């Protein structure tokens, strides 16, 4: 192998290694050193749940409200509503808690494919008017429709877990 061949091989190996690391979806660090957005989100959600356990309801409410203002990349951001409802109910504001829980129920039904965002998709999309504005704006849009029609096993598992938690929060809000 001559010098040029060695150099070519070295460049190829370096390139392959660098690109492989970038494309790994499970990579926790990002190439530009910025914190991974979905990981940061999950961490803040965990912190909010911990505030709930500590009965720091006002702080928990604030945390979940902040999280709901954070767009998740091409993913509907609805899960914190469940814990926001719980925080309201446990803090004594059951009326507000039930309102948020009702919106969450709508969102989860859409995620599970039980409720449709649009009553017609072709040729034009016609919104399902039975859905509240907040539920529609959080969950709908063409980006998400295929996710609802073809949920992964992981998504089914997550949704089933949220449905079980929903039942518990609903009981707390009665």
């Amino acid at each position, binding site marked *: 192998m001559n010098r040029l061949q060695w150099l070519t091989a070295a460049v190829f190996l370096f*390139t*392959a290694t*660098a*690109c492989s690391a*970038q*494309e*790994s*979806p*499970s*990579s926790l660090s*990002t*190439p*530009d050193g*910025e*914190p*991974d*957005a*979905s990981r940061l989100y999950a961490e803040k959600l965990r912190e909010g749940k911990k505030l709930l356990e500590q009965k720091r309801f006002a702080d928990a409410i604030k945390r979940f409200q902040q999280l709901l203002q954070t*767009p*998740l*990349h*091409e*993913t*509907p951001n609805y899960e914190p509503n469940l814990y926001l409802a719980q925080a309201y109910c446990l803090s004594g504001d059951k009326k507000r808690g039930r309102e948020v829980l009702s919106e969450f129920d709508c969102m989860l039904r859409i995620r599970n494919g039980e409720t449709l*965002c649009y009553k017609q998709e072709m*040729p*034009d999309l016609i*919104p399902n008017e039975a859905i509240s504005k907040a539920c*529609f*704006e*959080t*969950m*709908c*849009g*063409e*980006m*998400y429709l*295929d*996710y609802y029609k*073809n*949920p*992964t096993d992981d*998504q089914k598992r997550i949704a089933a877990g949220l449905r079980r938690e929903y039942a518990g929060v609903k009981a707390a809000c009665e």
Partner: protein
Amino acid sequence: MDVTSHEGRFANGAVTGAFAYAFGRMAEPEAEFAQMQAGGEDFVNPTEGGLRGCDRHGCGGYGASRAAGPHDGADYVSSPGQVVQSPVDGVVLRVSNPYAGDSRYSGLVVNSAGGHQVTVWYISPNAGVVGTTVYAGQGIGIAQNLGMRYSGITNHVHVRMHYGGQSVNPTTRIPTWP
């Protein structure tokens, strides 16, 4: 072709962009692009940019992980304000809104003459383009700035492609180089 023209288009840095470009060419042999000619269709890169790599929000390849499920499309790196080209010859069916709750972002659905349905998101459609016949390479809109919604993201257009009702990996049709 000037590799350095890709530098700066990636949030990951110029070196990454150049390597992604070089590696992308190696990973996508010409044989795959024989499909581009199936049915006599021509496909054009809508931004003349590379495939989005990974940033703090995720990766741009087809099937890349999203919290909602696998990425049903491919992301072509763009610069906000640049002209975005139709990837196919066809008819612009309608405007498409990726997010019901965020009217800042939009896109177009184009039905190709060869039976592909192509959705291009994160563009501001040209006025009057809906309902018109367009050719591959014709400007159909302007690239939007995704950074307003997703801080620190690599700007791109999202291309979703269906053929016969099935999802297709756009990079098996659309080249990731100019």
